């Protein structure tokens, strides 16, 4: 939230500025395998795979299609049980292919290993599922009838460093849980205390970025998903969030988004999740 202020300083620059689109002559780079996988308590693991691309290459629909990976062998193990995930399809998502378990179910406190084999490339990662966090209370905040948000209050544990992530799913608007506007945080500023946060709607993918409305409206039915993560899982999403917040800024973040995938990019993360249904009145 505070970071938004920084951009006000930066936005002072374009008083006289004129802009033009330019073409840059940059060399192509090698492709890497990108993992977006998660496992939650009482649910099957789910993994999306894709390939990276050169930033300035011509990206048409065929390129985007070819960046999807559907011929990999994806295996998840919790130390007791090992399962090769099954390829499935969801045409309302990019990438449309995903790998999902049918037997192995997430349990709080367990460690999960991920192994991916694609031709001669091997990737691996490990994550844990921490205990789900709980809200003390949540309520709807109002600016006016079409500008509402959700306020949450919760008490952080004092004896540990805790990492959180928040999502929202608005019935009739979202097919999946969409991360809230600011969705990744840890307890560095409030360890062991009770805090209040406001949750606003986040971007539902790239297409939503330009005409984004961060407010809820009267009549919306919302499910809030409140998750805890381990440190490596958090590091990925925290650096990802930093990148996303910086996207429209004058001084983009040059930092790389971290990864916990050996041999590739992306994330394999365990969530301890709680769900809360709210009807916006």
């Amino acid at each position, binding site marked *: *939230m*505070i*970071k938004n*202020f*920084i951009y*006000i*300083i*930066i*936005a*002072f*620059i*374009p*008083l*006289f*500025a*004129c*802009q*033009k*689109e*330019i073409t*840059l002559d*940059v*060399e192509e780079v090698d492709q*890497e395998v*990108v993992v*977006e996988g998660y496992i939650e308590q009482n649910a099957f693991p789910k993994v999306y795979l*894709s390939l*990276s*691309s*050169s*930033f*300035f290459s011509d*990206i048409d629909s065929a390129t*985007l299609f070819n960046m999807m990976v559907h011929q990999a062998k994806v295996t998840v193990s919790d130390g007791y049980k090992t399962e090769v995930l099954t390829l499935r399809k969801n045409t309302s*998502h*990019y990438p449309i292919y995903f790998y999902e378990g049918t037997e192995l179910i997430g349990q709080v406190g367990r460690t999960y290993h991920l192994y991916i084999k694609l031709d001669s490339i091997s990737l691996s990662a490990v994550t844990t599922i921490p205990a789900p966090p709980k809200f003390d209370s949540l309520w709807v905040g109002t600016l006016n009838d079409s500008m509402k948000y959700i306020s949450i209050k919760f008490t952080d544990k004092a004896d*540990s*460093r805790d990492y959180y992530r928040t999502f929202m799913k608005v019935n009739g608007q979202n097919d999946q849980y969409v991360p809230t506007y600011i969705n990744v945080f840890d307890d560095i*500023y409030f*360890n062991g205390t009770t*805090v209040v946060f*406001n949750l606003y709607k986040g*971007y*539902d*993918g*790239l*297409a939503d970025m*330009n005409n984004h409305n961060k407010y809820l409206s009267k009549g919306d039915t919302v499910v809030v998903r409140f998750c805890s993560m381990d440190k490596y899982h958090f590091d990925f999403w925290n650096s*990802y969030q*930093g*990148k*996303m917040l910086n*996207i429209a800024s*004058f*001084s*983009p973040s040059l930092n*790389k*988004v971290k990864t916990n995938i050996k041999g590739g990019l*992306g*994330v394999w993360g365990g969530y301890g999740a709680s769900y809360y249904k709210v009807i916006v009145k």
Partner: protein
Amino acid sequence: MKLLRIIFLFFLLAGFVSFGHAQNDTAISFELHVYDDSTGLPMPGVSVFFESLKNGGITDSLGFFKIDLPKGIYSISVSSIGYVNQLLHKKIEKDVSISISLKPAYVITNMVTVYGESQTKNVETTQMGVSEIKMEDAKSLPVLMGEVDPIKLIQLSSGVQTSGDGNTGLYIRGGSPGQNLLLIDGAPIYNPAHLMGFFSVFNADAIDKVKLTKSAIPASFGGRSSSLIEVDSKSGSMQTTKVSGGIGLLTSKLCVEGPLVKNKLSYIICARRSYFEALQPLVKMIINKPASFFTNTNYYFYDLNAQLKFIATKKDILKLNLYSGADHYLYSVKENQEASINWGNSVYSLKWMHFISDNSSLNQIVYATGYSFGFNANDKDYSFNLASGVKDLGYKLEFYTKKSSRHAFTSGIEYVYHTYSPVKIEGDVLDVELQFAELTNMRAHELACFLSDDFHLSKRFLLNFGMRYSWYNHTGPFSEYSKDAIGQVVDTLVYSKKDVLASYIFPEPRISIRYLLQESTSLKASFTSHVQYTHYASLPSVSMPFDIWLPSTMKLAPEKVYQGSVGLFKNLRNNMFESSLEVYYRMYHNLIEFKRGVLNSAFEQSYYNDIAIGTGKSYGAEISFKKKEGKFTGWFVYTLSHSTRQFDEINEGKEFVSTFDRIHDASCVLNYQIKKWTFSTCFIYATGNAITLPEKLYIIQENIISEYAEKNSFRLPSYNRLDISVTYNFKKRNHFESALSVSVYNVYNRANPFYISFETQGDLKKYKLSNKATQVSLFPVLPAITWNFKF
């Protein structure tokens, strides 16, 4: 206002230059008093040169020069910046004392010399890498929006990287702006930028001259590691009250000066203020898409220069100087939602020049200087305040004495008490107070003593050897927190005022040598070392007002710079042309950089953990060629250079080029003077900035992540620009003089890149994606008109 002047710029040596031959028993005393013909005041710093001896000296602050010579017939050249040269032919057979007056040379020609030498001085002294500019003569040069800016003009010197539009930062031989010792009347000034760096804080009307030294910085200057920039304010007239001013597009200014007690006490007050807010409706018409940030903005800056000069006795002169300037920026959308940025500098100094005898003098200065920055933002739900600043209290004593014709010593001490408040952030969200990292109120003592000698080994060899010893103590009161693995404060160490937290001592030897190959050709070499105890960090990629200054501590050792340079200096056609070639190599140690920017570090509560410490090097060759006299004057400078950095924690430890590395950097300035008209043009070419580009993208959560290539591995297009100006000097009527300047900045409307932004658009569900690179340029072709007056 003396708009039109000829310039003969001279090196002002640290003291008199002694003769290269031994004294003999039949020496005769020659005394000279030099006065300004227009004011009748004694003229300090006038060059007195004996042609047959190939040597000479300068007048002291009372316009007095004395030397012992053998009997003979001498041609004596007496010259000073902006005055008509006088050549005296004298048969000297007995002790003699004469007085002469120099006439201002403003009707002869108009020329700006960025390389400050006179006649053959550039060849004869040990000084290297010096550029000097006299503001009176800069007024006919084409400038941005009619605003003559001393710092922008210094940027036209060799070895100073072109920083581009909207940046007054001086990047000298690969150094950062924070490594320049910028002195206004002997007192340091921390942030020389107005309007986010578009203009410097120096009001050209209040400034007499600016001098930049890149090599062989004398031992009497320290505390910064890259260069020395001395800005001298004007002194008020001791004779008559004068008013001068200027009306420009962006600012207007007024100066009043005159005697309080004739020939004893004078004053000068100069004020300048922008009226940008009044021009907002006009700018809105010009700009296609006025950002809401612009329409809701209220911005102004001002500065004030004042001086009292007191000639107490024949041997004592006192100067009380004041500089105060600030920028205020307010952006408000509606009630309870606004952001403001305020920053500024204040400098106060008292200088006492005491002349003990003909051969020795004592200069003392006491000063207070401060820089502060504040950023406040408030919204319905949250508030955010950030403050940063630094204050210095300083004292310097400098003693000059000429012991014999072979040795001239400069010695002294300097003490500075620093108080740093690097960053203090307060914020709350919905009345919940947030805790940020703080770096407040750190204190340090810096003490130095120095000694240097101008030693004439022979007629051809001149050696300047200097040694500076500096002591530094970081002291309390200070509190240090130790934290556990989860960031909780587990212990607090409290230091009192008497406790020393860190201590450093360093010698800073400096040596320079000149070998005279011929009468008008010399070879020079120098080696200098510098220690900088105050670290500088700024927001990456742009020169923002938010610079922070950090003291050296136990964890943060002082910066060190070593520089070697060699140069060949030659004058042609009876000193009408000056040329030089200089090569240098510099090494930087303990440079700092914030790994993720200053502000990001605040969110992590750990500044020192976020500071990367590294090294740097730069090397290059500088060529300059200048025509000093005649109707047609000008100069051309070219620098070929390279500057790199290496930090273990940045760019995976690999060496990278610094942002303002310019492989090629050239500028050419031409002036043509005909009757009351002056035509000027200026052309600049520089290799583009090194920037970091995204090279890879991937998709997570249906969003695009861009991954950046190696730091500064891509070059922006080159920076180039042509400016022209025409100045007409109206006929002087009843003491009223005025001149009208019309200038055009960026004549061929070159879109020089200021920065490049990237935009990714599309809808992955529909298999659509596009990446756009957009170049933002600051200044298109910009005409300006300025009217300057004086009565």
